[in-house]
């Protein structure tokens, strides 16, 4: 088999891919044996705790740690002074990890202690005296953009604006995407609708708080155990912040209790290492839930204007979006991805999206599942729904008439390769849910969503063991069952049973660099690397067989887990199984291993359509989701159960975002709801079953046709539910969350309007 061969996933008969074996990490996780971030301990370990600013914006005049240092049991205290201000690229990361000069949000770390027990550490924090000069603050994106708004950084000059502004502001950058001229398009339209939308920040809400265990030796070598989506990122960042050689820090990724993008940066890890270095002992830091909400990344809040024009025949003639996102105290709101994705579902002649990245006195945002896309889809898909109604067209028909397809010039630049949007739309239209009867006060909404999917740097090592089993080392933390799918892929290629392959997430010193598990890249990139590493191993296995038989390696083929002579001409030898070859490896040239390193390209974009039925209580404004269906293109589903799980999980996070989740700030700039009681993520009784349809339109960029599936599923729900609420109660909600007070106000406002007329 040539090493670069791609099979045709549409017709190929897979042995394992597409089946549903049990996950290899499953038994550990149902018995309590699995070790998560907070589950590791070390002899002599200290407890680290972090002091956080109660002020949203304050100059730090001084920090006095003398009293705390004298408390028995306190072994180390660190502040910003303990970290070197290094390269500019890392300055924001460093300032977020430990405030320098100013505290920029409620919850910003200002100092940390390591002590012999949690109670001593807590007591010590109370003894640290911080002298704050309180400054005016701003937490709202539109307020922060106004001239005269409290300024967070006096050197922030808006990037990508020509000519460059002379004065600093809270606007970090502008971006623009599109082609044609929307104004020309609007002139060709029969109906043009323009609406403004707002969405509040939401948190990833992983159940496992950030946790790590750091141990620095006196020889300057360190080890770190941490729950993260990217341990190589943690290693490189921490090494830079602590002034260490990368090789001297070994990071092991624990089991991770949810991330959704929120564990793609560092918060406590450099602090734990600095404390450990100072104390000469291991230090464990575990965030409290309150700290998770106040100080780790939520996503951005947004304010958006969207204008779309259509003809009566349902052709979109022009589309324009202006998107403002605040990303907390530092630049980096995902507005660029939001602006790029805004109209990515559609084949448009005149389209433009403009984005503004704004800073405010809130925690620095972190990636959250399809960062930037859900809020923008909420705006765009809501306007499309309104347009469909206005021209009397079925909403799926309207989307089909404008759907992007292979060869479409996307609104963000590239031309699409093979994509599955049309197939998803058709599957939705044919789904029984679409035509099922509705109950009283119920409405149905539909919305589309898009996500890019990432590739990136990936490295895999596949070792053939002496007994014919396989040890697979990957470097992408398993955030959604990837060890199962990697075992399946390796076994598929090698032609051996699934349970003969054991996958681990290797530590940073055991395997080459891997990018973070993000961007729905793991099944695509690590899967691709696993296929190629297996093929590399097969090449070597065939060579060993050739050596045993005394024939040319080219005359050996690999079939169903066996090396065979390629034809009778090559020789008459009984096939050798992988186990046969492995057993004799010591005599035929030593250990056998396959490797692959790649900066993977060709991650196929993916699309989803969501159908939501919502019931609205007209007297209280309460919205209940009655039925929900996710239809999404997976390219090729390696393990369908976990693909469905991604569809369902994303949909439910979107339901939470749509209905109840929000960051609530008081006038004092403090977060009012830093806990699961008042930050209301969906509970089991809030939901119906989430039906799924896996559409498979193979990605030409992957040997099996795999597309990422993790993120697209959170993009459509916000709009799908808003559209369902609109259908149920005849009110158009343009602000998220659609909490009961907001929905009731809209219903009552409409009734009052009617009464006046």
């Amino acid at each position, binding site marked *: 088999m040539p090493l670069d061969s791609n099979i045709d996933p549409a017709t190929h008969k897979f042995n394992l891919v597409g089946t549903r074996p049990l996950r290899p990490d499953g038994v550990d996780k149902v018995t309590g044996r699995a070790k998560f971030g907070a589950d590791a301990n070390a002899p002599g370990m200290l407890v680290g705790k972090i002091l956080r600013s109660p002020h949203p914006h304050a100059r730090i005049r001084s920090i006095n740690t003398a009293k705390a240092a004298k408390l028995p049991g306190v072994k180390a205290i660190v502040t910003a002074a303990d970290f070197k201000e290094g390269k500019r690229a890392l300055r924001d990361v460093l300032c977020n990890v430990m405030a320098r000069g100013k505290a920029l949000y409620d919850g910003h770390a200002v100092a940390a202690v390591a002590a012999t027990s949690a109670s001593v550490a807590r007591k010590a924090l109370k003894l640290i005296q911080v002298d704050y000069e309180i400054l005016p603050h701003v937490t709202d994106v539109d307020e922060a953009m106004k001239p005269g708004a409290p300024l967070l950084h006096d050197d922030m000059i808006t990037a990508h604006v020509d000519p460059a502004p002379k004065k600093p502001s809270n606007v970090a950058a502008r971006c623009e995407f599109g082609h044609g001229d929307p104004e020309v398009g609007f002139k060709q339209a029969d109906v043009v609708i323009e609406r403004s939308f707002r969405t509040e920040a939401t948190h990833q809400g992983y*159940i496992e708080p950030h946790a790590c265990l750091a141990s620095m030796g006196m020889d300057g070598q360190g080890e770190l155990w941490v729950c993260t989506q990217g341990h190589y990122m943690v290693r490189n960042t921490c090494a830079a912040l602590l002034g260490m050689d990368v090789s001297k820090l070994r990071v092991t990724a624990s089991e991770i*209790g949810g991330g959704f993008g929120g564990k793609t940066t560092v918060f406590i890890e450099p602090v734990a290492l600095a404390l450990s270095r100072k104390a000469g002992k291991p230090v464990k830091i575990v965030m409290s*839930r309150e700290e998770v909400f106040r100080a780790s990344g939520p996503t951005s809040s947004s304010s958006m204007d969207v204008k779309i024009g259509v003809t009566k025949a349902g052709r979109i003639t022009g589309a324009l979006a202006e998107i403002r996102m605040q990303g907390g105290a530092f630049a980096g709101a995902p507005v660029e991805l939001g602006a790029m994705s805004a109209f990515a579902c559609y084949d448009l002649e005149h389209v433009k999206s403009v984005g503004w990245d704004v800073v405010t006195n809130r925690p620095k945002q972190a990636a959250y599942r399809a960062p930037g896309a859900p809020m923008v889809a909420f705006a765009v898909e809501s306007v499309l729904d309104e347009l469909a109604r206005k021209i009397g067209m079925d909403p799926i028909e309207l989307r089909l008439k404008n759907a992007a397809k292979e060869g479409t010039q996307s609104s963000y630049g590239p031309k699409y390769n093979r994509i599955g949007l049309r197939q998803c739309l058709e599957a939705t239209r044919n789904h029984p849910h679409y035509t099922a009867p509705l109950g009283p006060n119920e409405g149905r909404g539909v919305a589309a969503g898009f996500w890019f999917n990432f590739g990136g740097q990936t490295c895999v090592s596949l070792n053939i063991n002496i007994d014919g089993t396989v040890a697979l080392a990957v470097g992408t933390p398993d955030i959604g069952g990837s060890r199962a799918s990697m075992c399946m892929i390796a076994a598929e290629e090698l032609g051996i049973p699934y349970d003969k392959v054991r996958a681990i997430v290797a530590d940073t010193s055991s395997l080459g660099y891997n990018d973070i598990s993000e961007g729905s890249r793991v099944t695509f990139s690590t899967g691709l690397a696993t296929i190629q590493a297996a093929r590399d191993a097969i090449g070597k296995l065939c060579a060993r067989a050739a050596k045993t038989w005394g024939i040319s390696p080219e005359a050996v083929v690999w079939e169903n887990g066996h090396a065979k002579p390629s034809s009778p001409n090559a020789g008459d030898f009984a096939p050798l199984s992988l186990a046969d070859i492995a057993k004799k490896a010591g005599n035929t040239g030593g250990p056998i291993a396959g490797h692959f390193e790649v900066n993977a390209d060709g991650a196929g974009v993916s699309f989803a359509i969501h159908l939501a039925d919502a019931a609205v209580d007209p007297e209280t404004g309460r919205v209940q989701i009655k039925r929900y269906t996710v239809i999404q293109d997976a390219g090729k589903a390696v393990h369908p*159960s*976990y693909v469905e799980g991604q569809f369902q999980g994303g949909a439910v996070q979107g339901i939470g975002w749509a209905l109840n989740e929000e960051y609530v700030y008081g006038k004092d700039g403090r977060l009012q709801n830093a806990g699961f009681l008042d930050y209301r993520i969906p*509970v*089991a009784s809030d939901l119906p079953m989430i039906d799924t349809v896996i559409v498979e339109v193979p990605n030409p960029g992957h040997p099996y046709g795999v597309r990422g599936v993790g993120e697209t599923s959170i993009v459509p729900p916000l709009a799908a539910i808003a559209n369902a609420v609109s259908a149920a109660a005849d009110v158009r909600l343009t602000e998220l969350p659609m909490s009961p007070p907001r929905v009731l106000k809209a219903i009552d406002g409409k009734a009052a309007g009617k009464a006046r007329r």
Partner: protein
Amino acid sequence: MSTVRVSTTINGDAVAYLCEVDETLLDVLRDRLGLTGSKEGCSTGDCGACSVMLDGRVVCSCLVLGAEAEGRDIRTVEGLAAGDKLHPLQEKFLEFAALQCGVCTPGFLVAAKALLDRNPDPSETEIRFALAGNLCRCTGYDKIVRAVQSAAAELRKG
């Protein structure tokens, strides 16, 4: 802070420990006894990841003082399987892919067992309300509910 000496039973075994008054049962299980199967997701009783059985009722161990456990009977996720045989709930969670990250799983298993002990044939709605105190952010609950339904059917067969 005064220290309390406690004798109790955990997963059928007699256990004695010392703890500070303000330490929770969860702190004791995880930090003093090495039973890290019970997870701390919030420490305010809102997520259910620390669920354990206390004298036959499911509780959040973060809302129980270690000192309260004197003479009680405590069951944790570590005691769910019988020797090397998984409990049907554990098997069904695996079969139905009812876990993704797995950090909420121990709490769900303990709470689901508490439900099925009292109600061997719960409706979907009863399952959803009984498990509303257990947050899962990965699955959207669909596969968890199905796993519990299937385990209930299996257990009814006896």
